């Protein structure tokens, strides 16, 4: 198993004591594509970032087991974690406008990711960066490598981000809403690119999104999170047979082109979902 999570709990200190952001989450992941869906604040990003131990400084994390390829992540030292971060697991975030360093060129940022895990000279790394840019289907890699993030479009920036995270050839890719900040047409291109790279390299993928249809179309398995817990986990092609009222509610409030409804349903939340 690439990732094993048992009873993960993430808490944040607040004025009234510790508040649970993720509760009793258990997951396993092999070389497959797992989608995590849920609304803002449901804990999907925190769950995924726990795997790389990239939580905010004030977060308290505990779990019965949190392992990457058999390595216990809670007991691991910084050096071990640094080898996993970037080296064996990559993270793609929402908006390249903020997630790329604004004062470094795209090429330098990719080359840096390459060098820190593979070593080698600056020139080798620069060459590798150009090659990676070609792999993420950028037509003019030389120009993009020299460009600063603000000179790139959103789709272009996200390709740079993907190239950077793929540089050390990781086994797991976490994509945290990788297309939410992009135009609809570019979204499809980026997702196709991720899908292509992931299956070609035989990587595991965790795709975080709040777009249910997209995730079910794209992933093998879907976990639905609500208020810090996984309320339902099912195969992507069985999404229509979801049992949990929250998942059902989400599906029912989607507009449809083929079966238009005069009025969309509004989800009725039940306090019992919280327990």
């Amino acid at each position, binding site marked *: 198993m690439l990732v094993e999570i048992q009873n993960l709990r993430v808490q944040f200190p607040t004025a009234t004591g510790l508040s649970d952001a993720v509760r009793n989450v258990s997951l396993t992941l092999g070389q497959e594509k797992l989608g995590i869906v849920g609304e803002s604040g449901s804990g999907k990003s925190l769950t995924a970032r726990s795997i790389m131990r*990239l939580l905010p400084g004030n977060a308290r994390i505990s779990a019965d087991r949190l392992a990457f390829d058999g390595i216990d992540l809670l007991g691991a030292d910084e050096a071990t974690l640094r080898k996993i*971060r970037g080296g064996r697991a990559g*993270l793609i975030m929402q*908006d390249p406008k903020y997630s*790329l*360093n604004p004062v470094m060129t795209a090429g330098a940022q990719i080359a840096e990711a390459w060098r*820190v895990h593979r070593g080698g000279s600056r020139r080798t790394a620069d060459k590798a960066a150009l090659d990676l840019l070609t792999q993420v289907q950028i037509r003019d890699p030389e120009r993009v490598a020299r460009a600063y993030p*603000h000179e790139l479009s959103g789709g272009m920036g996200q390709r740079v981000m993907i190239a*950077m995270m793929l540089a050390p050839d990781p086994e797991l890719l976490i994509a945290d809403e990788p297309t939410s900040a992009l135009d609809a047409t570019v979204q499809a291109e980026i997702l196709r690119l991720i899908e292509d790279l992931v299956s070609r390299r035989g990587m595991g993928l965790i795709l975080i999104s709040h777009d249910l249809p997209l995730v079910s179309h794209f992933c093998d398995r879907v976990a639905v999170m609500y208020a810090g817990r996984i309320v339902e986990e099912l195969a992507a092609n069985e999404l229509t047979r979801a049992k949990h009222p929250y998942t059902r509610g989400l599906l029912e409030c989607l507009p449809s082109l083929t079966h238009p409804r005069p009025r969309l349903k509004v989800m009725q939340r039940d306090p019992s979902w919280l327990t």
Partner: protein
Amino acid sequence: MRQTLASVASVPLTLFGLILVTFLIGRAMPIDPVIAIAGDHAPPDVIARVRTELGLDKPLPVQFAIYMGQLLHGNLGNSVMTSHPVTEDIARFFPATLELATVAIIIAILVGVPLGVIAAWRQGSRFDHVVRVVSLAGQSVPVFVLGLVCLLVFYAKLGIAPGTGQIDVAYEGMVPPITGMLVLDAALEGDWDSFWNAGSHLVLPSLVLAYFSMAYITRMTRAFMIESLAGEYIVTARAKGLSATRILWRHAFGNIAVRLVTVLALAYAGLLEGAVITETVFSWPGIGLYLTGSLLNADMNAVLGATLVIGLVYLVLNLLADLAYRLLDPRVR
């Protein structure tokens, strides 16, 4: 490029405004420079003659036009106090200020920037709290209090620091002026006795000034760094598996370096100008001491001249910071 030209072009305009305002304040002052020259008990005909000689009987716009005319020829008038041309005085006094402020800013940067960076990195730790208290004190304690206390402790009580002035009286006039900065001149001359003596005189005033400046630099660096460390690109850098040092200096600090240049330039300009009090406390023969002396003697030509020089320094440093900004930040290039 056009913005660069615009900021260069704005310098003469700002300078003109500065001259005008200083000139008007000088003429509106309730001190009569004529009496300062002729004395309190001079007969009325002498006073009238001096007034005519100084051109003070002409209407204000005419006086200003005459002053501007002289200024364009590099003539700032004569100082009543020293009876030298003001330009000569400034050329003699300014290097001492430059020496003091430059040593102070170097110390302030070397100490202040790392302190701010580490305090931000360890935000909320004991180190951070100490840094914050120390830098708050540096900004709150008046320079003259700090200066006097330092003199009292290190010179009067402990006797490990030399007293006021730029150099001991015994060494005065030994080093021929080249740059006007004594320590530098002594080194250039190879006069090591004077070098060490002048250097030891530099320690206390430059440390007092540096502390004041360091406090500001530390606080700004810390605030910039905290903001930068909260950026998404820091999460990216961590996700790449970079070392803490590299994340801190290459990614977080790299993003504030440009803004910091502006802060440092203004801090330096502030030292060149704000040394007035420190120079008075330490009897440092710099532009600040010259300015205070001239003010107390209603020596308006000297006051105007010194103000202009300080204003010019501010403008030039500001302009340089502006240019550096455009050069260093890819987003505004």
